């Protein structure tokens, strides 16, 4: 194998599939799909570092699933070529759904392996704020999760929070694996400076993400923010009972540590001066506007300017900045039905408000806030009043006493304006003395140049092109200010990454980083999921929900409401993952590989080969004894196939060479049953030839190494080859028991396996009790043998094996010239026979190559062009695609059939199909056949 792999004239295309074959002998064109290994064969040394760190275990087919291997694997220790392969079906739907390209399957796999630090850094590769998105995300990954098709999606957000909380708790001993976590990205820690400077306006998720990416690319970045704290809406827009501020501060500190300069309390109102310092020299080479949407909206209704109308963001900002506000005894009305309104309602409740009402336009089922959070708010004491519009704020004695509302029928939004019908006679007053407006947020554009050089897409955000550039070159935009309204943190982070790539391309031209390339997404259907669960890849447990602290312990303070998963819960939840992509794309291997051989974006490639001859050596498939219930395989423990036994007794096998029963003990007696699936009308009529001999070998192995009594139950001992009979005699003299019989049934009896058989010899038993049964399974054609035969244009015999041209005179040739057979794809055979046939096939192929010419059978089809009408029925009928339609030179260009004499095998199917008998077969033409027939009738 190794010498084949190293031979300079042999191109070994492993992990490949033939897609199509065309042409004819001497001129075959073979199209081969080389499947993506995700590891560069030419660089991989086979050291196995990738497999060591891979968190994904899959069944090992080399050990017949008796052991596990990793998603990064080498088929066997002896494999040629020795390079590793990553088993990956594509990217997981969770990654596909996430705007930040977060590899959720990756960190879930690492959590399952208790590698929490690795998981934390795997998250941070794409996501600088894990603790935020572990809490306040709308988790599109969970919506896309394949597990949702079976029961409920994996609690991906909960797992992310678990990791981020774990990292925060262990922050002092957390290893700095920043350099590892950016392997495989275009980023670097402390990269060489590019000498370019970038200004970022706004220290929110979009601005900071972009700033971090740019710093990692070697640019100098300064972030300006008008607020006294960095973090933008994450820091001042989400109340502490949902997102504790210290976590955010810790994560932002990490960004600052990487070299991002943040200038707080700085209001930028001259973007031009950022780009130029007035002397024609650039101050900053590029500017990113990521100022967010920090203006809450209100309706121009009567008394909406009264001082007790508070704005949602104002309230949240004050609370988050640590201001003590006392609302005890106040009756508060929150106007709005979204997540901000919910945050406000729950915040004022914590500030001591005695009554909180939340009123909005949409009916209960269509409120934009998360349904679960509305429930939680109600639980805490917020009264939800949906389905009404607000007509005026009623003021009496300079104090607000309520809001006049009318119930409405809601018909959705059109161009962000609601379509409603007021219901007459439903006017009423919601009582309250403080109104909080939470009906939406919009960006503050007051800092933009007054001359309109940065144009605004009124009313939604700043105008930007595909590269996220505004109407001033070098000025980019990302985040809520780009969209013109509040979106989710993940969207902002996603846009932060995207804008960083755009800015890098702007600054460095062609050297800038390109948009990431995506391989296809894996979609599991219900059937796939069932088989995954059946194989035990994932547990069948129910989803573990996030639990909360009791209502009475939380409504009057800002303690975080939701609890993190415990370690046990996290481990249980992570093992629910179905591992859609198989490879989890955690990219641990990327960091472990010292040769840089791993490329997770590899794609299948197509290789077109021009060859003269083809040898098929596609082998056989082991008979699956599950079909033959009498042997009890799959139902009874300790009934194993010969191949499984081979792995068990192999020192590099799953048990290190120990033959053990399921209960861990050594077997004291072993029965080897012959002819499983062979020589049986129910399964295969043919003899599989190799089983008798390998059974004898197994008998000797058991006898010599297991020290158990061995019984061979055989039908006929077929020891046909050189030295084979001697081997049989040797086995017999060692003391192996040979009983003649045809197996009737294997069943369990008193902890033993009872084997019964018919046709026993006189004076021999017809049953036996043993500890272990080994099934000498026969051969079967490969499952896709039909497809392969069709692909190469060869035939199969009735048993499904490839058909040789003649059993005696042309045993390695096929009906297609230039295609030869070797090994068990042609019929069951043992290794010596396979080697002999392979040699013969090679010699036959070589003699053809050496001659350089071929001789053809003279009996081929010919066209009588005068009679041909060019209908093309023969083209359809030809099994060898040897006929084509051409424009005849003699018949005024009439289209006629033409036979390719190299491809034609002379079957005459075309002549049978031609309605006008314009197609004939040399030596079997119509004249000859009719004359023969007439003569025969005389």
């Amino acid at each position, binding site marked *: 194998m190794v010498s084949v792999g190293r031979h300079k004239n042999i191109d070994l295309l492993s992990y490949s599939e033939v897609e199509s074959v065309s042409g004819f002998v001497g001129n075959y064109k073979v199209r081969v799909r080389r499947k993506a290994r995700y590891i560069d064969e030419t660089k991989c040394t086979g050291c196995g570092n990738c497999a060591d760190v891979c968190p994904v275990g899959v069944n090992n087919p080399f050990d017949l699933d008796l052991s596990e291997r990793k998603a990064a694997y080498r088929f066997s220790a002896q494999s040629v070529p020795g390079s590793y392969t990553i088993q990956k079906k594509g990217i997981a739907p969770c990654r596909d759904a996430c705007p930040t390209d977060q590899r959720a399957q990756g960190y879930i796999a690492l959590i399952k392996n208790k590698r929490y630090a690795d998981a934390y850094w795997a998250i941070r590769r794409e996501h600088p704020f894990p603790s935020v998105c572990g809490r306040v995300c709308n988790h599109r990954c969970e919506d896309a999760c394949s597990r949702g098709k079976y029961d409920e999606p994996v609690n991906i957000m909960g797992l992310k929070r678990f990791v981020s909380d774990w990292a925060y708790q262990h922050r002092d001993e957390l290893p700095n694996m920043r350099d590892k976590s950016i392997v495989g990205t275009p980023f670097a820690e402390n990269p060489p400076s590019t000498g370019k400077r970038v200004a970022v306006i706004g220290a929110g998720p979009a601005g900071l993400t972009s700033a971090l990416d740019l710093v990692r690319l070697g640019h100098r970045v300064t972030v300006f923010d008008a607020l006294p704290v960095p973090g933008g809406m994450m820091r001042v827009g989400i109340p502490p009972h949902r997102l504790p501020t210290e976590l955010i501060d810790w994560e932002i500190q990490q960004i600052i540590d990487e070299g991002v300069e943040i200038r707080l309390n700085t209001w930028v109102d001259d973007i031009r001066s950022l780009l130029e310092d007035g002397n024609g020299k650039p101050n900053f080479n590029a500017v990113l506007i990521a100022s967010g949407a920090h203006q809450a909206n209100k309706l121009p209704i009567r008394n909406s300017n009264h001082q007790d109308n508070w704005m949602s963001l104002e309230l949240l900002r004050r609370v988050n900045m640590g201001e003590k506000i006392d609302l005890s005894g106040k009756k508060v009305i929150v106007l709005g039905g979204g997540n901000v309104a919910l945050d406000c309602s729950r915040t004022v409740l914590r500030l001591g408000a005695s009554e909180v009402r939340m009123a909005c336009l949409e009916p209960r089922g269509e409120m934009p806030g998360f349904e679960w959070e509305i429930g939680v708010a109600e639980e805490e004491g917020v009264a939800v009043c949906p389905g009404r519009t607000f007509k005026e704020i009623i003021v009496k004695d300079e104090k607000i006493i309520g809001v006049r509302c009318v119930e409405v029928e809601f018909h959705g939004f059109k161009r962000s304006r609601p379509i409603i019908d007021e219901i007459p006679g439903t006017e009423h007053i919601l009582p309250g003395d403080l109104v909080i407006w939470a009906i939406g947020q919009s960006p503050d554009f007051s800092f933009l140049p007054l001359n309109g050089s940065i144009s605004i897409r009124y009313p939604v955000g700043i105008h930007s092109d595909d590269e996220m550039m505004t109407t001033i070159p070098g000025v980019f935009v990302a985040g809520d200010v780009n969209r013109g309204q509040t979106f989710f943190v993940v969207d902002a982070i996603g846009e932060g990454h995207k804008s960083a790539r755009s800015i890098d391309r702007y600054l460095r031209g062609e050297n800038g980083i390109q948009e990431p390339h995506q391989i296809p997404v894996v979609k599991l259907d219900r059937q796939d999921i069932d088989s995954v669960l059946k194989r035990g890849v994932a547990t069948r447990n129910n989803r573990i929900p996030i639990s909360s602290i009791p209502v009475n312990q939380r409504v009057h303070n800002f303690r975080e409401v939701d609890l993190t998963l415990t370690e046990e819960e996290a481990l249980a939840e992570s093992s629910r993952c179905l591992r859609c992509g198989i490879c989890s794309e955690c990219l641990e291997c990327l960091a472990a590989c010292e040769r840089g051989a791993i490329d997770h974006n590899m794609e299948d490639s197509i290789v077109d080969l021009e060859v003269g001859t083809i040898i098929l050596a596609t082998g056989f498939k082991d008979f699956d004894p599950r079909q033959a219930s009498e042997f009890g395989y799959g139902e009874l423990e300790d009934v194993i196939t010969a191949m499984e036994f081979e792995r068990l007794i192999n020192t590099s096998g799953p048990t290190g060479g120990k033959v053990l029963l399921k209960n861990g003990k050594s077997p004291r007696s072993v029965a080897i049953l012959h002819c499983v699936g062979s020589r049986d009308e129910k399964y295969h009529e043919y003899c599989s030839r190799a089983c008798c001999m390998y059974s004898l070998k197994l008998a000797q192995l058991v006898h010599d190494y297991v020290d158990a009594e061995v019984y061979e139950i055989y039908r006929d001992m077929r020891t046909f080859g050189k030295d084979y009979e001697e081997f049989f005699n040797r086995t017999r003299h060692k003391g192996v028991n040979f009983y003649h019989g045809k197996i009737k049934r294997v069943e369990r009896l008193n902890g033993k396996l009872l084997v019964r058989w018919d046709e026993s010899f006189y004076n021999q038993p017809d049953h036996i009790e043993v500890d272990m049964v080994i099934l000498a399974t026969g051969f079967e054609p490969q499952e896709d043998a*039909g*497809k392969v035969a*069709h692909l190469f*244009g*060869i*035939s*199969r*015999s*009735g048993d499904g094996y490839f*058909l040789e041209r003649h059993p005696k005179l042309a045993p390695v040739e096929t*009906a297609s010239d230039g295609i030869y057979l070797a090994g068990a794809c042609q019929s069951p055979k043992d290794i010596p026979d396979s080697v002999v046939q392979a040699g013969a096939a090679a010699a036959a192929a070589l003699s053809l190559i050496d001659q350089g010419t071929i001789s053809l059978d003279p*009996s081929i089809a010919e066209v009588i062009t*005068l*009679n*041909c*009408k*060019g*209908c*093309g*029925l*023969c083209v*359809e*009928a030809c*099994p*060898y695609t040897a006929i084509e*339609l*051409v*424009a005849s030179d003699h*018949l*005024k*260009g*009439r*289209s006629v059939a033409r036979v390719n004499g190299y491809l034609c*095998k*002379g*079957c*005459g*199917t075309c*002549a*049978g*199909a*031609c*309605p*006008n*008998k*314009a197609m004939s*077969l040399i030596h*079997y033409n*119509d*004249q000859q*056949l*009719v004359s*023969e*027939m*007439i003569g*025969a*009738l005389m």
Partner: protein
Amino acid sequence: MYRPKIIAFLCTWCSYTGADTAGIARLKSPAHFRAVRVPCSGRVSPELIMRTFDQGADGVLVLGCHIGECHYDSGNHRTAKRMPVLRSLLEFAGLEPQRLRLDWVSASEGERFSRIATEFCNEILALGPARWRVSEDQYRTVKVDRPPISDYTPPVFDQTLFDKQTDGMRKAAQELLSSQQVDCVIGYEEDQRGRTRPTFVYQPDDCSRLVWNQSCTHNLAVYLSKKLNPNGAYNSLRGGPSVAVVVKPCDSRTINVQLAENVYTREQLHIIGMTCTGVKVQPRSNGYLESLQGTQLQQRCLDCSERTPLVYDILVGEPPDDLPDRKGISSKALKITQLNAMSPTERMDVWLSEFDRCIRCYACRQACPMCECPTCLYERDDSLWVSAVNGWGGVGLNEKRTFHLGRAYHLAGRCIGCDECERSCPVGIPISYLNQMLASEMETLYHHRAGASLAPPPFVTILSGEEGLT
């Protein structure tokens, strides 16, 4: 003692070797066999089998490799698909179906060969000599009953409907001609006696000649191959002039068949599709229906539920939706059932009586849009397929039958049932029964309807499913 003459076509790889194996094993096979070796059962053409019966064989046995074991990959698949259709055709014409048998014998199955051969011989012995090969006085001329005529009264359509369609058709034709998109429009016009006939319009001004009514019976696709290839050469590979043609729904399927057979390319053709309310019985269409001329719909229209062409570029008229579903009321289907119920001998007498009237004028062939062969197989002077017993161009009864059955077989899976052959027959042979019987056979056996798509006829494709049938 009666010694049947049995011809066995044996595939050289399996069955011929199988026969050898039987011989080597000293198995007994009947002595009435005359084996003809062929490379593959796919080589055995239906014409050859018909010819073998014509020459007086009492039985024909075709043996090939088992399905999936063909030495030539799938040659036997084609045989497996042809033979059932040929057998039903011969059966319909009066041959006992047992006289034609297709089976599979592999090279090692000597015992199977001997068993099949003995079985087949015994069957033929039981049947006695075939009456297939006849001379004029050897059969009983029977008066063939005409099938009952359907009492269906077709709805009377307002003339404005047809005027509107005529207008639309003229307008479309005019535009195509004046924009020089096409060189010629093939449509219908009225002659001086008020009868509707095909016409060729070359000038935009002449488009006013075109008409549309319920007498537009002709299948205009018959002119296409000549018109699109003015040199008498088929230019499907090189392109050629463009022609517009007016088609009914049934005619549109003709175009699909012709396209599948590369008679011309779709680009050469501009199809003016007409929605159809059925065509009335025309003068000279089957004599016995003459009384219904102009009132009753043609038999083929009685069974048809297609209102819109399957393929067209311009559709003229709204599909009429108020027509009742008339399926299954025609007398043609009924007559086929009647024929099927007869004994083979009776059926043979019926058909020989019909074919005896044939004068071999070939009007049916000329009227058929599918009969495109440069020189018809049955008109060649090599006496290969029709014997020269009666001299060149002889009109022997066997030859007439061979011609009609051979033509019917060639149309199986291709005939769309326009019945132009029957309408043009001067002696009123009900040719359409053969075609219709085979068309329904193709539908039941292979779910194939001629011209429904661009698929080739099933005879030339492999059996469905990877392993095929056995």
